[in-house]
């Protein structure tokens, strides 16, 4: 069954019921149910192989699944995938890439500063071929690309993977600011529990055995984390 829109209660953007994904005999996600409230921030955590990326790909309809995925009417999703494998010499510049998005959306954009400034990419960098950009630059370009489509939902698959520490801070701050300023709904995969604690309203924790969904305070407990990750996990909670 595939994702559909409509028939979602007013306060939610997304409703997932009994979602299962399997590849041949291997079950990757089993009977997953959760709702995502409008303008909320949901972190997806879990050990490697728990199916976090698979979940996001199922939500955008890129995979076959069973169960129900319902998006609210008029949803516009901006998806930022994990690090992409690009050839260095591919003759497509950042501006080409953004222009392609604008053209597909029938938006005659000539000036991309409105999406490049928030993500902190100078125009000179955007004019370079995408294969020559650093991991962090390309990640931010992908966010800018998503913004060209005027999204109301952002799906981010480990946006800070492969980005240096100051860059990570900047990206996390950027996502939080976008969420606040444009009241976006954000679903993000993260391995950094301190970021999850700080930025997420809800946490969806995937593991082979069980799934947990709730606010960070109830999910990110030492006992539960030990059960899911199978070892002692510590994280630092920033006090605001």
């Amino acid at each position: 069954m595939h994702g559909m829109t409509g028939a979602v209660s007013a306060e939610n953007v997304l409703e997932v019921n009994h979602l299962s994904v399997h590849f041949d005999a291997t079950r990757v996600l089993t009977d997953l149910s959760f709702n995502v409230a409008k303008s909320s921030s949901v972190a997806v955590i879990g050990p490697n192989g728990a199916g976090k990326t698979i979940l996001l790909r199922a939500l955008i309809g890129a995979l076959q699944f069973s169960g129900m995925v319902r998006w609210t009417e008029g949803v516009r999703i901006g998806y930022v995938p994990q690090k992409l494998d690009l050839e260095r010499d591919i003759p497509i510049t950042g501006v080409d890439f953004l222009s392609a998005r604008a053209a597909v959306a029938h938006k005659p954009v000539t000036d991309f500063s409105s999406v490049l400034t928030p993500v902190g990419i100078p125009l000179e960098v955007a004019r370079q071929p995408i294969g020559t950009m650093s991991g962090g630059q390309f990640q931010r370009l992908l966010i800018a690309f998503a913004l060209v489509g005027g999204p109301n939902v952002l799906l981010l698959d480990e946006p800070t993977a492969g980005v240096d520490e100051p860059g990570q801070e900047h990206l996390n701050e950027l996502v939080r600011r976008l969420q606040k300023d444009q009241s976006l709904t954000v679903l993000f995969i993260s391995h950094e529990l301190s970021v999850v604690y700080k930025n997420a309203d809800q946490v969806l924790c995937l593991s082979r055995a069980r799934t947990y969904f709730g606010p960070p305070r109830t999910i990110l407990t030492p006992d539960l984390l030990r059960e899911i990750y199978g070892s002692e996990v510590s994280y630092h909670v920033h006090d605001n």
Partner: protein
Amino acid sequence: MTIETLLVAIAMAVAAGLVGSLAVMRRMSLAADPLSHVALPGIGIALALHIHPVFGAVVMLAFGALLVWALEDRARATTESAIAVLFSAALAVGSMMTTGENLIDALFGGAGVPSWSEKIFGLSVASAIVLFILLSKNSLVIMMVSPDVARTADIKVRRLELLYLEAFALTIALGLRYLGVLLMGALIIIPAVTAKRLSHGLSSMLWFSVALSVLSTALGSAIATHLHREAGPITVLVATALFLLSLLARRQRSAD
């Protein structure tokens, strides 16, 4: 070579340049060769049924593209093996069904003067392919960077993929009479590879690729007429010479 034949050849070269740009960027440079093999059984069947060989080739190439598309949905390694097996088998079946001279013509081109209907067919298919690539280039670029991202930009990824593969297969079919299926693969790929070396962005890539493809075709035809040779091999040699020149140009530029 008459003016109309040259016109059809140039239209074909424009289509090859555009389709090739995308193929090279998508790392499909080696796909033209196995796909071109499926044209052969089509030619064989068409000859046996006394219908036009181009028609048989078009049908089989379109079917071959559909097959690649259907297999692409599965794991990549399996697809590659399946393509290798199926298309090599097609070559064997094709060479059994097609007799010596027809086989050489199909592979390397040059079977007499094309008829009016062939010219009209060639021109309309080439125009359709050019139009398709120009209208879909943005969606194709996004899909090439990430099919998942394309999906969220409301691009019908699977449908576009099929259309592109069919455009690719039809471009090979276009070259059947003029260059032959084997050499047509070369005209799709070589100018695009050269263009990629010379380009920084998307529009220069497309322009360079089309210009180099047309230049190779025009120059190749002129030299072939002068030397009383078949145009196909010479066209591909001209394209290769332009590629070698681009290596020098690049070296010169980095030396500056």
